[in-house]
């Protein structure tokens, strides 16, 4: 097991993780099969175009899973994550690079918990687009 993050090692405003993943069609198919969400929006380009997208998009939960993994990779201790709340605000297209990030928003020394601002971003046509925004995680640290 990875060493666990300690409460005393972090401070408000600190960026605590940044994890990139290139979103491939085969990853999205594997996620559909593993999660059981077989919505054609995530597998069938013709269907995706019929509802206004240029092609298939990743599941919102695909991006949340990447964010969750970035969090637990950073934390080390599987029991440290107490809460994860996300808002899905933009689609993710194939072959984009999805970056999950987290910064420390607030610390509570009495309970050794930290509230993090978390989000996922992609670079698209010169802009920074946030498929997951205004989201938070609460972690309880050693």
């Amino acid at each position, binding site marked *: *097991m990875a060493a666990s993050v300690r409460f005393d090692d972090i401070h408000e405003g600190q960026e605590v993780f940044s994890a990139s993943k290139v979103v491939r069609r085969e990853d999205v198919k594997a996620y559909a099969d*593993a999660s059981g*969400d077989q919505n054609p929006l995530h597998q069938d380009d013709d269907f995706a175009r019929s509802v206004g997208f240029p092609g298939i998009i990743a599941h*919102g939960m695909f991006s949340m*899973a*990447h964010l*969750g993994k970035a969090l637990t990779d950073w934390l080390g201790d599987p029991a440290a994550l107490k809460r*994860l709340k996300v808002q*899905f605000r933009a689609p993710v297209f194939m072959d984009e690079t999805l970056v999950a990030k987290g910064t420390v928003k607030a610390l509570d020394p009495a309970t050794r918990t930290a509230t993090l601002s978390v989000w996922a971003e992609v670079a698209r046509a010169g802009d920074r687009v946030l498929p997951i925004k205004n989201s938070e995680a609460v972690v309880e640290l050693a």
Partner: protein
Amino acid sequence: MPLNQALKGKEYQPVEFTVEPDQVRQFDDAIGEHNPDFRERFAPPTFVTKMQIMTSGQAVLDQELGLNYALVVHGEQEYDYARPVRIGEVLTATPRIADIYAKGPNDYLVIEAYIKDAAGETVVLARTTLLSRGTAGGG
């Protein structure tokens, strides 16, 4: 057609779910999870979504609700964890319609499920907000 707000508060049947090692392994592979804690002892935190997909059908497909799944977008997802989900354990999810409201042209449906272990202790509270595009009739 707007969603039927009379269903606010409706609770559905509890559904039992075994956290099968093969399913957790498949999920780990799909999300690139290599941490041995998650591969051997616990399901990764967002594995709960699989449980929700397998247990929330009775709510989203409820004829009285009037939800057209082709118009649905996943708006928000929230998990409160009491502890990690253990591989091999048997959990029970009881879905409930926590809220239905209209905002602008869209309807919002909030489905909540307390996921409990065999001892009746809550392991995870899952809350999903679905957006039904254009069905509210507002502007």
